[in-house]
């Protein structure tokens, strides 16, 4: 079957269940296409031969009742995978192979899925273009020389290029939604506490969440249903009633109230984005939902707040990479010298920049002015959403202030790079779920996304809205396979 890789996850599952294709066939098909797609540089670690073995084993005694029966898939290289190298896109972990499995990936394998390999990402998930990875930048299948977004750039590129039927990323400030938007795919950042952080290389603990990245909303709902679980090994995991998101998925959103926050009309917003947003509003109305203007007054402060909180936590979370226990070590004259050389050589420039920002904002004399103030503003941002949700069921915004940019275009301008996250970071700061769906193209033909932000634990609602809109939008990704010779 030559068109296996063109199938969505749901189609693939259906075909495997109906024994039209085997897991081995599916696995081989994605591997074959991946082999032809090296130029995209999505893989840090390929685990292809093991994947075929697992697929064969699955086919010998297929359990078709599982939610992901024999489905091959690749995951972001931020998830620790037992006996498979896990790098977080960093030189400092280039030789690190965990002896343990993250809860989220364990949930996936428990439902019958098979690991294809580990996908490229920005180093320690710090970046918006996948250009900070030690393993090089990733090509966006939309066009040559285009970034796939970040930090889950390998993941977004792999899904868009159909090298994996679905994947998981992590989102600390937009790292699922922004790359989804850049590649014409769907990405969900779940409510903080929905997916366990156990076994995920930490960037900023109070913001990090794993989430699905897929070709369509139904697939996204299915994977969310698999990965979301209460986990005692993560103290911030929340024990709430989780839906069968895919089963309960409906396009009936009649009467839902959707808020349009005026503060998201930022200065200098490209007209294309403005128009896309307007189109989104029309789609929502077409679905029978109601549009309300709302205000999230502290939106302007979200980005600076994020760029204090996230680096502060990161500076501490990354202290463990010191060359003592595991990972890269540079020789030194003494302990301090070894630390300095290890961390200077092991971490890339962006990671070092954030460690320094984080160290600075936590230092005595600056703590109150930066970190403490940021925490207060974070509370205000959360309060804004709480207020808004008294009136509306969900909020619609653009996912990003622009479409995908060129590789190298913003690498020397960190602030303009950080601005990519302007619509996504408030959601992380407030711990809310947000989904980006492809909603149109810009004049260059690059995809653009819209973001639906929900109430905490209300993933079902935003999935339903996304599902209803998806039907109206009828987006078609323009993938030309330009990289396949």
């Amino acid at each position, binding site marked *: 079957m030559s068109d296996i890789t063109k199938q969505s996850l749901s189609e693939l599952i259906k075909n495997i269940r109906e024994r039209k294709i085997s897991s081995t066939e599916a696995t081989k098909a994605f591997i074959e296409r991946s082999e032809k797609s090296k130029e995209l540089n999505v893989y840090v670690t390929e685990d292809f031969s093991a994947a075929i073995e697992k697929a064969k084993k699955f086919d010998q005694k297929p359990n078709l009742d599982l939610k992901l029966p024999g489905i091959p898939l690749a995951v972001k290289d931020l998830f*620790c995978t037992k006996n498979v190298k*896990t790098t*977080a896109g960093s030189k400092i*972990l280039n030789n*690190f192979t*965990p*002896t*343990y499995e*993250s809860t989220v990936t364990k949930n996936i394998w428990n439902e019958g899925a098979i690991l294809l390999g580990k996908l490229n990402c920005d180093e320690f998930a710090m970046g918006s273009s996948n250009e900070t990875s030690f393993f090089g930048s990733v090509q966006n299948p939309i066009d040559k020389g285009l970034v796939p977004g970040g930090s889950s750039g390998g993941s977004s590129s792999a899904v868009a290029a159909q090298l994996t039927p679905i994947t998981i990323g992590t989102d600390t400030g937009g790292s699922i939604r922004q790359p989804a938007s850049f590649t014409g795919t769907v990405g969900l950042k779940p409510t903080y506490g929905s997916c366990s*952080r*156990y*076994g*995920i*290389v*930490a960037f*900023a*603990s*109070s913001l990090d969440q794993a989430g699905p990245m897929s070709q369509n909303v139904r697939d996204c709902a299915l994977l969310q249903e698999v990965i979301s679980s209460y986990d*005692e*090994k*993560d*103290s*911030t995991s929340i024990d709430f009633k989780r839906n069968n998101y895919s089963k309960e998925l409906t396009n009936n959103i009649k009467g839902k109230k959707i808020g349009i926050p005026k503060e998201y009309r930022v200065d200098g917003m490209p007209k294309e984005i403005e128009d896309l947003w307007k189109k989104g509003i029309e789609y929502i109305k077409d679905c029978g939902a109601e549009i309300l203007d709302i205000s999230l007054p502290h939106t302007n402060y979200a980005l600076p707040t994020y760029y204090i909180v996230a680096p*502060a*936590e990161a*500076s*501490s979370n*990354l*202290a*463990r990479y*010191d060359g*003592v*226990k*595991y990972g890269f070590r540079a020789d030194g004259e003494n*302990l301090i010298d070894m*630390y300095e050389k290890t961390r200077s050589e092991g971490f890339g420039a962006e990671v070092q920049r954030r460690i320094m920002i984080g*160290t600075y904002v*936590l*230092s*005595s004399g600056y*703590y109150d002015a930066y*970190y403490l103030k940021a925490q207060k503003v974070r509370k205000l941002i959360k309060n804004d959403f709480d207020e808004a949700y008294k009136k509306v069921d969900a909020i619609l915004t653009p996912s990003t202030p622009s479409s995908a940019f060129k590789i190298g275009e913003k690498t020397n301008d960190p602030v303009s790079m950080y601005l990519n996250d302007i619509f996504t970071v408030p959601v992380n700061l407030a711990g809310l779920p947000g989904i980006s769906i492809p909603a149109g193209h810009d004049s260059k033909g690059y995809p653009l996304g819209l973001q639906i932000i929900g109430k905490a634990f209300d993933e079902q609602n935003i999935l339903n809205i996304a599902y209803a809109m998806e039907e109206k939008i009828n987006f078609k990704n323009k993938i030309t396979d330009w990289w396949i010779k």
Partner: protein
Amino acid sequence: MSKDKSEYLINRKDNQYEVVIGLEVHAQVTSESKLFSTSSTKFGAEPNTQVSLVDAALPGMLPVINEFCVKQAIKTGIGLKAKINKRSVFDRKNYFYADLPQGYQISQFKDPIVGEGKVILDMPDGQKEVGIERLHLEQDAGKSIHDLDPKNTFVDLNRSGVALMEIVSKPDLRSPDEVNAYVKKLRSIMRYLGTCDGNMQEGSLRADVNVSVRIKGTKEFGTRCEIKNVNSIKFMQMAIEYEANRQVDLIEDGQSIDQETRLFDTKKNETRSMRSKEDAHDYRYFPDPDLLPLEVSDAFVENLKSEIPELPDEKKKRFIEKFKLTPYEATILVSDIETSNYFENVIKKSDVKLATNWIIGELFAALNEKNLEITESPISAGNLSKLINLIKDGTISGKIAKTVFEQMMEGDKDPKRIVEEKGLKQESDPKALEALIDKVIDNNRDKATEYKSGKVKLFGFFVGQVMKVSGGKANPQLVNEILKKKL
């Protein structure tokens, strides 16, 4: 030293200096597993055999609070008559060291689990109250071993993540003796509670000692120095003594004291500068985002209160009131939970007064000599009780009892059997005694005459002779009575 015995002062020329001491005691929580992981805390295991993925800070590993350790900390707080904070926060204390795998220690900075409390000390000149500033929970670090290899340092992470309680006193202590009493009392309270075994050899109890001096009568505190990580009471006392004198000398010399962290060199008996205030670490404390604030309910605390045993102060009061012990005796007997248990077991079936004397006197001396703890005593409470009863009912004299006791210390258990086998039973038959006494008088006719003519002092001589002839077994009371009649 001062002339007033109770006051510890340092004299120089015209000035008398008072020493101000505050202690930060690090007490290892008695718990099977670590503060945020399930690895064992057992002492003395092979290096790096009690290290979980969390303790070694592998990527993506997360701390999960051990509820038992929280209970232990709250119990200790209750024992210190302290305020229990229903909401406390775990912070990260960031610094780099080879034996600190996370690159930070999880501790409590702004919001500790226990607030202000107090400890009562029994000093020779009366009671003294020492304020407790706070108690917080934190992780221990691993251990760096520098002397196994000329070039490399080895790291043992068995201790990494073990739960510690840091108990911070107010600067209320004024002498090495008070520090001794304070640490012992703290240790005693925690041992009563079962929250810390107080074993200083195994490092279960260590302290940072803050010392400053000021001219007696001054209100303001002097600049303090912190002596880090002193692991015995004796060393604490020595360090304070040295440090206080060092500071006084500096002041007398017209110099000022630098606020700094110092180390106590036990071999040279001196403190040395470790780092100055300027070099002090900036620990960049901030709330650990991996852990939610720790919240406990009233019911949770009340429930723990109901589990609190009788503590030394209350027990002392009861011993004095119920058993009519002197405060001195009571203080000694309650100082350690094991001692007080032993005492109470002995007096279940025997005389309180005798038991008190025998435990504080003979038993303590004998144990001391053999360097044994009361729990290791060769004489069980039951057997000591039997021995005391043999004295009480006149079967043996106090003097013979000492012989029996010595035998018992050698591991010979039953005092009754010892008395029988060795024929140590006291002679209390009046007829047998009369015969003995007649014989003694007969042999000492001249002295008997002298006695009768008024030299009453000779009575003691006759008692001695009778005892001697009887091999020490004659009942001394009866001997007295009969002798008086006969002479």
